[in-house]
């Protein structure tokens, strides 16, 4: 069992490196300067390091940075046994890094051969376990298979094998183990529905989970929700993990701390500045890139709404100043928000003042009641009519008779 724990601890680290590192990832990023790839990559290990490097290479658009990222990815791949990924990396480099970084066919063949042998060995072992019907051994066998496929990049097979261990789980620890494996692989595959379902399974476990596991599960769930664009819930989940150590984490990431402070003390211009600085680097994050634009828009809207909230009238010139934008640009943004019904106000475009609108609740209610009444009346009449048509069975004749 000791070996077990070790393995699961290691795996937890792996998941951590993959997913819920909500604050660590910001550490090397200082005031929006060019991302220091080496420092960034040092934060991660294993597959995720390679994946992140490749992602940066794809996205950054600067040739020197791209090659740097690819070079590190190449080195990293060679340390492992993942020939699939290797074949992916080589054409991307396309000989631009000299002969040392070419398609190393000898290495790939050797690795592939070794892998083939290992697979045969694992298969025979598993068959032996299965004939003996020892649950624990079968579970270990499938687990090994999962690890093997994972190392070689066959994520689908790895997932299948990890999930198969489920039938042979005897303790709740095993189930958690299985769930964590499945979550890890699903994140890599981008199958975020699996992630949330396995998080749910793990959380249903009757035994109390230790703090780290809980945090990992929350982080994975947060990530899954992020992918599903449910930002609000994702934020809440992430908050829960950070709760105790939130402040400490923030100290590590001065920008984010400043940003949040500014947001809450209404220094919107500097808050948005910080955000602007972070943007370039967030775009290079493997999980966040899709959502950066939308999150930024949301943050900006939220700031605008908060700004207008306490006032009866707001001078647009001053507001534009606070948000470092032009009056006409601000007018357009406010117009969109008013149309969306997010701000209850009207713009005096001639005097450049925003007036809060005080809706006449009483009148509005009467209007709504009257409208509901007439709609109800209309619906009931239509319903009676349809009921009568059905009652006399006019349905079937309708199209054929004439």
């Amino acid at each position, binding site marked *: 069992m000791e070996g077990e724990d070790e393995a699961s601890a290691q795996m937890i680290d792996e998941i951590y490196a993959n997913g819920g590192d909500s604050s660590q990832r910001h550490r090397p990023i200082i005031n929006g300067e060019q991302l220091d790839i080496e420092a960034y990559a040092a934060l991660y290990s294993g597959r995720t390091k390679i994946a992140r490097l490749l992602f940066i290479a794809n996205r950054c658009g600067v040739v020197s940075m791209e090659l740097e990222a690819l070079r590190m990815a190449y080195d990293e791949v060679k340390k492992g046994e993942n020939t699939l990924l290797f074949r992916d990396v080589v054409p991307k480099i396309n000989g631009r890094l000299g002969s040392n970084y070419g398609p190393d066919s000898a290495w790939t063949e050797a690795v592939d051969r070794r892998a083939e042998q290992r697979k045969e060995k694992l298969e025979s072992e598993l068959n032996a376990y299965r004939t003996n019907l020892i649950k624990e051994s079968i579970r270990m066998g499938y687990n090994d298979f999962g690890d093997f496929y994972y190392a070689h990049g066959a994520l689908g097979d790895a997932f299948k094998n990890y999930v198969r261990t489920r039938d042979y789980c005897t303790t709740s620890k095993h189930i958690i183990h299985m769930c964590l494996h499945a979550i890890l692989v699903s994140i890599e595959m981008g199958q975020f529905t699996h992630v949330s379902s396995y998080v749910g399974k793990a959380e249903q476990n009757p035994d109390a989970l230790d703090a780290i596991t809980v945090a990992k599960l929350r982080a994975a769930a947060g990530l899954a929700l992020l992918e599903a664009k449910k930002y609000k819930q994702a934020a809440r989940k992430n908050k829960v993990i950070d709760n105790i150590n939130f402040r400490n984490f923030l100290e590590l990431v001065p920008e984010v701390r400043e940003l949040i402070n500014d947001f809450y003390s209404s220094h919107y211009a500097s808050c948005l500045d910080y955000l602007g600085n972070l943007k370039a680097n967030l775009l290079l994050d493997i999980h966040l890139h899709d959502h950066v634009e939308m999150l930024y828009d949301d943050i900006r809207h939220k700031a605008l709404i908060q700004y207008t909230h306490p006032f009866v009238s707001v001078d647009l010139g001053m507001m534009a100043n606070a948000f470092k934008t032009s009056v006409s640009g601000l007018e357009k943004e406010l*117009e969109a928000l*008013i*149309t969306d019904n997010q701000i209850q106000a*009207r*713009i*005096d*475009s*001639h*005097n450049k003042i925003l*007036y809060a609108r005080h809706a006449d609740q009483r009148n509005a209610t009467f209007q709504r009641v009257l409208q509901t009444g007439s709609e109800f009346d*209309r619906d009931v*009449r*239509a*319903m*009676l*009519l*349809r009921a*009568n*048509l*059905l009652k*006399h069975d*006019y*349905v*079937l*004749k*309708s*199209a*054929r*008779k*004439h």
Partner: protein
Amino acid sequence: MNLNMNSVESLVAQIQGLSSSGDDIAHLHILLKQSEELLQSESTRLAVVLAELDPSKHSLGYLYILEACTAAPISKEQANEVILSIARFINECAAEQIRLAPDKFISVCKRFKDQVILFEAPMRGVAPLLTAVRKLKTTSEQLTALHPDFLLLCLLAKCYKTGLCILEDDIYEVDQPRDFFLYCYYGGMICIGQKRFRKALELLHNVVTAPMSTINAIAVEAYKKYILVSLIHLGQFSTSFPKYTSSAAQRNLKNFSQPYIDLANCYGNGKISELEAYVQANRENFEIDNNLGLVKQVVSSIYKRNIQRLTQTYLTLSLQDIANTVQLNSPKEAEMHVLQMIQDGEIYATINQRMEWLDS
């Protein structure tokens, strides 16, 4: 030959004698039913006999004979006379007598409608058919087979106001589903003509959601108009059907009206130039369906809708800004639109001429 002649003569005598009390009329009805064949064979010579009867007193007998003598094809020369004589009968006949033989009455009225249309004088048919509908129906909730014919004549004669008086009654009893479909469809068109869009939507909605086992052309056309009217009136259109809609309609209607669905999507984006380009590109489709006029109303309604939205957002706005946001060519044009809308009571605003901005 002689015998036949006598039979018709004796039948006329019977009609004259048996048209006063209720019992007599019931007896006469049986006699008339028995002599239907006789009337058919003698149809050519019956016109003369009609002169001997009084349509207001001998309504039932008159109806049988009139029906028989209009059964034969009617030549162009006779048409005018036939129209006149049927119109006179409809005006004078006694309601309680003709209700005994509604089929005969309906078939006479339908021939009348056909003749009026052939004669290209639908206006002449409007008033008699309204009388016919009123005489035929026993309750205000009943939909007779003459309702759609009456509405059709109203449409052809452009007498929309006259048509409305029938549409105000709520209908619950239906004889033929086809009549119901046509009634609602024509009714919807009449309401559109009078710009009573709410009622029009209600009627067209009835067609679309009526129980049906197979799709029919009336429902398809009604659905197209339903899309357009709901864009004009509500400024939006939801492609989802209410759940009581028949499955045949849910499956097929959208396929038959794709250009209209696309138009609604285009409208939803709120971009005027895109909408106009789309209408231009699909002009033929709409023209074939005779819906181009409605489509044009849809286009002009998007201007209104956008201006209305501006008044929700702005207290004051210069005409130039209005023109820019609503994509009008000049402040002058914006002013015309705003002015029109203020006149129609669609927005509450004043235009400040000196500074050229809008107070809402």
